[in-house]
């Protein structure tokens, strides 16, 4: 369990994180979403005590992380796959960390096997690793202490499709075993197939903290597409029934009424339907719309939702 309360971080005149409050619960994969520069990494660093908050507090399992003398058995973290010394082998890197936390040496081989770096790969110098291999090493580091809480900052970067599938399965298994899994990403599509819960931030402020299903439901474009030879008449009926209708030739885009209700109404008024398509807004749409106002590095057309 991670509890973030009124968390604020300022760097000089810049406010990176502002009055952030949320809870990450065990047994679920929680996605941490926001555009680039939204303050995700800063928040993760404050959870790990690497950065001191300007205001507010954050606890993991009821304690500030820096109050624990050793960390790996409490929180496993992959912040940046590059946070290793290129001159050491993967096995040596993990052996150092394991030793500092009194974790038996055999655990190093276990986690290397778990992430697919067993054997020769584990003995190679990390400097020669691809980004994907470094991500696997970072995940091995997070798993090393068998911790109840795991943090991952953009863990899918650089992974091949097989690696992405594996990571998703791993997150599901970890959450299924009752652990707290907190995964950041700037891509909604990555979370769509991974997360149960979402924390969405923009410009350092909380935008949403809710289940993936609820988040999807607030998608902007959720509605029904209707094709009819008598659009004007149908539009009148649907509007009278409380729907919002926009017409484009024979096509009507309807929101506020579901497909079955529209079908019933059309039947009652003897209006023919040629097409009746429920349109669930993609999570990406919902995400873009929600964060449109808070994109830090907007390009020419990034401000408008698709």
């Amino acid at each position, binding site marked *: 369990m991670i509890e973030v309360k009124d968390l604020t971080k300022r760097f000089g005149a810049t406010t990176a994180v502002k009055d952030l409050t949320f809870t990450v619960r065990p047994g679920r994969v929680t996605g941490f979403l926001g555009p680039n520069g939204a303050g995700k990494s800063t928040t993760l*660093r404050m959870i790990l005590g690497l950065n001191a908050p300007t205001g507010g507090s954050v606890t993991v399992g009821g304690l500030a992380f820096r109050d624990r003398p050793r960390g790996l058995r409490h929180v496993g973290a992959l912040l940046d796959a590059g*946070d290793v010394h290129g001159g050491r082998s993967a096995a040596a890197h993990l052996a*150092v960390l394991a030793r500092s936390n009194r974790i038996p040496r055999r655990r190093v081989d276990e986690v290397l096997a778990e992430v697919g770096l067993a054997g020769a790969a584990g003995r190679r110098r990390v400097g020669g690793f691809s980004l994907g291999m470094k991500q696997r090493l970072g995940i091995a580091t997070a798993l090393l202490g068998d911790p*109840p809480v795991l943090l991952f900052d953009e863990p899918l970067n650089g992974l091949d499709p097989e690696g992405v599938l594996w990571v998703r399965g791993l997150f599901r*298994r970890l959450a*299924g075993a009752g652990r707290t899994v907190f995964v950041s990403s700037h891509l909604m599509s990555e979370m769509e197939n991974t997360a149960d819960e979402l924390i969405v931030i923009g410009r350092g402020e909380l935008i949403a903290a809710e*289940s993936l299903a609820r988040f999807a439901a607030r998608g902007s474009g959720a509605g029904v597409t209707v094709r009819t030879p008598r659009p004007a008449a149908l539009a009148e009926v649907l509007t009278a029934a409380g729907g919002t209708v926009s017409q484009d030739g024979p096509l009507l885009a309807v929101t506020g009424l579901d497909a079955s209700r529209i079908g019933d109404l059309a039947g009652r008024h003897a209006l023919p339907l040629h097409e009746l398509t429920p349109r669930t807004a993609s999570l990406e749409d919902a995400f873009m719309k929600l964060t449109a106002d808070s994109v830090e590095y907007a390009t020419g057309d990034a401000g408008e939702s698709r």
Partner: protein
Amino acid sequence: MTNSRVTGARESPAPAVPTVPMPPPAARFRDLLAAEWLKLWSLRSTPWAYLIAALAVIGFNVGQAYDTYRYWTMENTADKARFVRDGIPLAEAFTSNAASILMLAAGAIGAVTVVGEYGTGLIRTTFAAVPARRSVLAAKAAVLAGVTTALGALIAAVSFFATQAILAGRDIGVSAGHPGALRVIVASALLTPVSALVGMAVGALLRQMGTTMVATFVTLLILPLVVSPGRYWSALLAHALPYSAWQRLTEVGSPVVAYPWSQAGAWTVYGAWALGAVVLAVFTVDRRDQ
């Protein structure tokens, strides 16, 4: 329920991994010492850096002794007598050039232990694994001090015995029992950990390779050049520097100086710099964002 996969995961049989981890064992400082030891020797560059430093320093000392040996027959009897009377054979056990090289190398070795972690980002992984940052830095300093003391002892001992063996070819070498010989060896040996800890402290303060190296070299080597032992305040400042302390401790005979100072004072300077460096490194890293 958000989707079917989630339900599936919930309904899956007993997880392979325990949900509630065993209570963690008590944190021990010696685990951190062991980790820093592993960290040091798992880098291929470590033994090379130590070997090159040792060869360079010993080379300077042996070179000077060999020069004396080679041109000894060209000196007249009076010069030879004065050479021995002034205790120069013992002074050649560790020359000031060799001491400068030693400070340079040890300072760099010390700086790299910290800056190497900042430069690669490893420091964040380290502190995420061990949130007790002061303990990490203390362990780092202890391992660095231990290893560089051993390195310094080796360099100083080899330098002493090699140079005196060469000078013995002209019957002017001294033994380890010679008055002051042990002091020359120990003072030269301990110059290594003092310089290494200074490099480490500067590295912890600046975190960046280029500036750290420059600042370390300025502190250890340039500062002693700009202070003059002939003026009171300047001499006072000079006496507070590790290089001057080394000069005082390896002094042979009793040269006439404007502002004399005691050997105990010089040993204290060594101790103060080492202690000050450790304190600076430990508390700087503890307070700042990583």
